[in-house]
């Protein structure tokens, strides 16, 4: 397998989207073809991860131009592991979407747009050029606009107004930062900028670009004070769409912050200070708001914000131990957040409502399913030995080692907030005696669904729950991966040498 293998995930996603666009309106074909192509993408992503694990960083120039003139695609361990996680989430969500998306939405092109979303995500993880990163980000947000408003109900359109405005603004801020970087260094290749940025005559202009990047990526990652679009819009689209958004799109912003700030602004104390303060406020804002929510999906949206705060806090602390914790947290969080929204979809199908006051009695009626749904809920809290525990320990011990007491205290406080919110949810939704369920037109409840549709709901939830258990119980397998990523990120010369292919 030579280096051109990096392009294969992108080609698979684009080819699958094209074939599904040819079959416009054929609902059955699109459903099983989406599952098939995502399974193929998972196999290719695992092969790519294996290749990167054995060979080190793999880089390829598209178009055959020498670096830094061409567009470089870089697959280091972080990129390869995130592409693998994207394809895992993609497979799970496409199975769930095949079971839950109504035929009217599928007829308007749901599955091709979902494939293009995955194409954009894989491309953004694998690219090594700043403007190419901007283009992949735009592909992601345009497909997410379509997925958010497909079907056109009132809540979706009103949520889309907020979502559209903030995302377009963040793209324009990001583009401004790219323009200034091109002006002061003359290049856009990330490795080349990393080498030329310390030599610029005006170091304060460099800090200005750092703040622009933080504002642009921070809006996408939903950190304080840019996060207000997320609770207004994530609870409106169908559950499969919320699952993809909650699991992957905010983590896209976190990945961009990690990549840009570890490569370009590595040892800047002021920037780390600003990032830490923003992370602390994010944890407080998301956690405190999650305590008072009544809608299940809005509760999960605020918990997304709180946990993004944990990851950004780790980036602010900045030591190798902290970055290990952040990367492990990223792996755990992608799987768990996707699973949470699918669980919300399952409870909606069981009882017909998403309001915590009106839900109840799920543990009495469906004990086995309640146990299955407990795995992601308690992994989120971080109860040992489930998967949330190990990265939190890593982050808190990294904070204590570096004498950063306030942010470690805030991480512990955020975990308490999560614990209270999930405990309240468990008591209200699962243990409380159930309320009266009224029959609704055009809505089949869970106990009346056929076996095939029940399987389409349960297989992805079970698959991701099993993966969460594996990450938790088998943390000894995941931790070396996170440590290798942190070691690669701590030294920019590793990345630069891999791109320019200089022999050491």
């Amino acid at each position, binding site marked *: 397998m030579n280096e051109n293998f990096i392009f294969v995930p992108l080609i698979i996603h684009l080819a699958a989207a094209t074939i599904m666009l040819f079959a416009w309106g054929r609902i059955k074909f699109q459903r099983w073809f989406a599952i098939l192509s995502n399974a193929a993408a998972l196999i290719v992503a695992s092969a790519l991860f294996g290749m990167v694990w054995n060979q080190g960083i793999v880089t390829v120039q598209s178009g055959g131009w020498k670096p830094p003139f061409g567009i470089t695609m870089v697959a280091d361990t972080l990129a390869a592991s995130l592409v693998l996680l994207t394809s895992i989430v993609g497979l799970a969500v496409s199975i769930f979407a095949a079971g839950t998306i109504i035929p009217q939405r599928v007829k308007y092109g749901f599955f091709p747009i979902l494939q293009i979303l995955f194409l954009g995500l894989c491309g953004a993880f694998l690219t090594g050029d700043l*403007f190419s990163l901007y283009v992949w980000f735009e592909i992601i947000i345009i497909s997410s606009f379509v997925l958010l*408003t497909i079907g056109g109900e*009132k809540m979706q359109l009103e949520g889309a107004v907020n979502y559209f405005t903030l995302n*377009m603004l963040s793209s324009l801020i990001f583009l401004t930062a790219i323009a200034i970087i091109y002006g002061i260094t003359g290049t*856009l290749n990330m490795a080349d900028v990393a080498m030329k940025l310390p030599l610029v005559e005006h170091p304060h202009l460099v800090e200005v670009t750092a703040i622009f990047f933080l504002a642009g990526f921070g809006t996408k990652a939903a950190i304080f004070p840019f996060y207000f679009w997320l609770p*207004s819009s994530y609870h409106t689209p169908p559950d499969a769409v919320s699952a993809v958004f909650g699991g992957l799109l905010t983590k896209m912003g976190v990945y961009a912050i990690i990549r840009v700030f570890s490569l370009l602004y590595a040892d800047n104390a002021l920037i780390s200070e600003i990032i830490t303060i923003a992370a602390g406020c994010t944890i407080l804002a998301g956690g405190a708001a999650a305590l008072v929510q009544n809608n299940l999906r809005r509760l999960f949206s605020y918990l997304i914000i709180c946990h993004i705060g944990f990851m950004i806090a780790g980036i602010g602390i900045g030591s190798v131990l902290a970055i290990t914790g952040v990367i492990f947290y990223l792996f755990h969080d992608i799987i768990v957040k996707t699973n949470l929204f699918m669980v919300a979809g399952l409870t909606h199908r069981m009882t017909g409502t998403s309001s915590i006051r009106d839900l109840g009695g799920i543990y009495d009626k469906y004990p086995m399913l309640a146990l299955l749904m407990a795995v992601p809920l308690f992994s989120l809290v971080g109860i040992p030995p489930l998967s949330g525990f190990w990265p939190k320990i890593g982050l808190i011990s990294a904070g204590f080692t570096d004498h950063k007491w306030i942010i470690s205290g805030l991480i512990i406080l955020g975990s308490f907030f999560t614990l209270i919110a999930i405990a309240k949810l468990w008591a209200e939704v699962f243990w409380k005696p159930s309320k009266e369920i009224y029959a609704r037109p055009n809505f089949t409840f869970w106990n009346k669904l056929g076996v095939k549709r029940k399987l389409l709901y349960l297989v992805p939830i079970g698959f991701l729950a099993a993966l969460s258990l594996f990450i938790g119980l088998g943390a000894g397998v995941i931790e070396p991966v996170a440590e290798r990523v942190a070691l690669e990120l701590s030294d920019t010369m590793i990345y630069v040498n891999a791109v320019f292919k200089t022999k050491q």
Partner: protein
Amino acid sequence: MNLLLPIVTGVLYAAGIYMLLRRSFVKLIIGFTLLGNGVNLLIFLMGRLAKGKPPLIPDYADVIPGLYADPVPQALILTAIVISFGLQSFAIILIKRVYAIANTDDLDEINTTDDYA
């Protein structure tokens, strides 16, 4: 010319941000158009202004001597214009659908998703 273009870029940014803060959805989209134009002009400015020097290497030399018209920002601007064209067409159709459903253009009244349910 050297001072005029940065001033125009600044005016476009300021006008765009002012329109973004208005109450009407249509004015918001106009603000995005102005801001997008400002960003494109900024990208153009960043590859230094050079009149009348095309990026062609003469026969006797290996690299272009001195200042020349940089083709890279022009490719970046083209891509940015295409992307913002797609986003603005989505925004215009979103305005039509939101107006049909909410019967108002006022952004302060399109906030049922923020209600405590």
